[in-house]
């Protein structure tokens, strides 16, 4: 090997080493703060449950996973699908889908409106969208409670203006949950949508009109394909936290119906079944990951087809 190639080779190795050193802190944090705890949860899901919470360390058991999907009937001991878990899962997924659609429906025109303003006004509006993030989600949820409860802002206004003669029950219904969820997650939809819309070359819209497209056609064939990455990002950002939502359904929905988050909480608390709680958490994680992969792959396929 000649000197020149050796020097080049050494330099290349040093470069790789440096990169590893530079990424080490990030990798370390990722492992310790994200992957490590997940491994603990995974291990717990395969252990025997302790008598009063916790697990019996080192004692392997599939009971936790069995109970995620199946249940032994309380009364006649027959084994069947864990119907309670399925309906709780379905309620959570449904709630998240509706929340995502509602935020998209409200967020799209909002982001569009912001993006067609002159730059200075745009910055101000984006800044205003981020204001809710300054406050803790719990406090925002309690504020929402003040708005929707029987003697709250909405009902007081409705009664005062004579539209209804007594307060309508919004609090503790699914409507209250939707109000709360949309309010809390809307900024997460508006910001990525705005980021995509800001980059739209409006000459393309004009070109669309020149080619005799109607307003709806321009929206569907020109604008939506251009902002697709924003729609995907916003939907993911809203859907995933909604799926695990805990505080909002509990405070605004009255806690009569369990969500996935509450079901997991029950197993770690009064149910004293940590392996089942761990297995349910992993199940939630897997569902989210699969949905995400499916969504991202689909989105990138059709998004790329428009080649701009």
């Amino acid at each position, binding site marked *: 090997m000649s000197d020149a190639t050796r020097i080049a080779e050494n330099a290349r190795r040093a470069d790789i080493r440096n990169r590893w050193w530079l990424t080490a802190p990030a990798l370390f944090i990722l492992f310790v703060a994200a992957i490590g705890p997940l491994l603990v949860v995974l291990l717990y899901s395969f252990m025997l449950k302790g008598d009063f919470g916790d697990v019996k360390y080192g004692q392997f058991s599939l009971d936790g996973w069995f109970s995620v999907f199946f249940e032994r009937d309380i009364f006649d001991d027959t084994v069947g699908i864990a119907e309670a878990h399925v309906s709780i899962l379905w309620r959570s997924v449904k709630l998240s889908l509706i929340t995502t659609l509602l935020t998209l429906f409200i967020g799209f025109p909002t982001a569009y409106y912001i993006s067609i303003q002159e730059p200075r006004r745009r910055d101000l509006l984006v800044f205003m969208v981020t204001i809710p993030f300054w406050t803790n989600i719990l406090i925002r949820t309690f504020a929402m409670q003040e708005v929707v409860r*029987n003697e709250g802002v909405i009902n007081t206004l409705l009664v005062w203006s004579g539209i209804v003669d007594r307060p309508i029950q919004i609090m503790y219904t699914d409507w209250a949950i939707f109000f709360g969820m949309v309010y809390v997650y809307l900024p997460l939809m508006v910001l990525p949508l705005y980021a995509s819309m800001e980059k739209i070359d409006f000459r393309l819209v004009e070109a669309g009109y020149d080619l005799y497209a109607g307003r709806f056609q321009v929206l569907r064939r020109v604008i939506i394909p251009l902002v697709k990455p924003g729609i995907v990002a916003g939907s993911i950002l809203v859907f995933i936290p909604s799926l695990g939502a805990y505080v909002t359904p509990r405070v605004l929905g009255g806690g009569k119906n369990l969500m996935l988050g509450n079901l997991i909480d029950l197993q770690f608390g009064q149910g004293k079944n940590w392996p089942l709680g761990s297995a349910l958490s992993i199940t939630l994680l897997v569902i989210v990951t699969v949905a995400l992969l499916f969504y991202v792959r689909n989105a990138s396929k059709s998004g790329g087809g428009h080649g701009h």
Partner: protein
Amino acid sequence: MKKLLAAGIAAASMVMAAGAALADGELNIFNWGDYTSPEMIKKFEETYKVKVTITDYDSNDTALAKVRAGGHGFDIVVPSANYVPIFVKEGLLLESRPDQMENFKNVDERWVNVEWDPGRHYSVPWQWGLTGIGVNKTVYSGDIHTSAIFLDPPAELVGKINVAPEMNDVMYATIRYMGGKWCTDDKEVLKKVHEKLKEAKPKWLAMDYSAHEKMANREYSAVYYWNGAMLRARLQNPEVNFGFPKEGYPFFMDSAAILKDAKNMENAKLFLNFIMAPENAAMLSNFAKYANGIKGSEACMDAELKGAPEITPTPEQAVAGEFMLPCAPEVTEIYTKIWTDVLK
């Protein structure tokens, strides 16, 4: 067992550092949120020149999990009656022998030989109460001393009821209402319990923790909830009445105990002795509005607490109450299944 703050609030810690500069030592107390009289802590700090730190928890299970994990640095914990035996069984509590302390003579005989800590070798009474019925009497004026208020609600109350989202308390009242005993695994009884809960739930408005303000502001007309909270509600709104279900209801008592790995053992012992003095126990009650187990503390209580119907059941009302001890793990598993199925 009283979640005076709404659910979901993560354990917040607050530091009461009055006279910290002079402190000779420290004491770390791990207790339910909104449950420790700041006035009493201040008095303890000034008397013994000790700096007290209080950390909140929101459920026995949270406290148990955190203490069991170790490295918490707490000296004192205040578990409920049904959790004291678990803490003892898991070897987490110090056998500090409060029964040999100077102020033990003040403990009401009723609370000395308790099932969860016979002879009080580990723990000292903090406060006690029960889960019962709160009703706004302008909405419903019939008999309120029954679990039928939330299990077979009268027409006036349908859709206006809040039930505490506590599996054990709700299962307890329902099992007793259906004629069973706590911790029963009798399938016949449990089947009836399951059906009764499924039938009753649609008639409830919510299962929420902020019942005291919502009874006071008429958002709810009836609740199954803790008596101290209903006392608070009545002080704000005299329409709120409290009932002791004659079919059976659960008592709770939280007791202060020293953790085995406490770092400030001597201060912790001073504290246990301190809260058994009537004037100090009275401060606890004045703050959280629950009864304590110390004789003579009534004399120092606020006027509104003396003889308050919520915290002083008559002998006839008291017989229906019982302490809820921990059930066997298999039984808890059945109860959790029923509970999950009702709330699905």
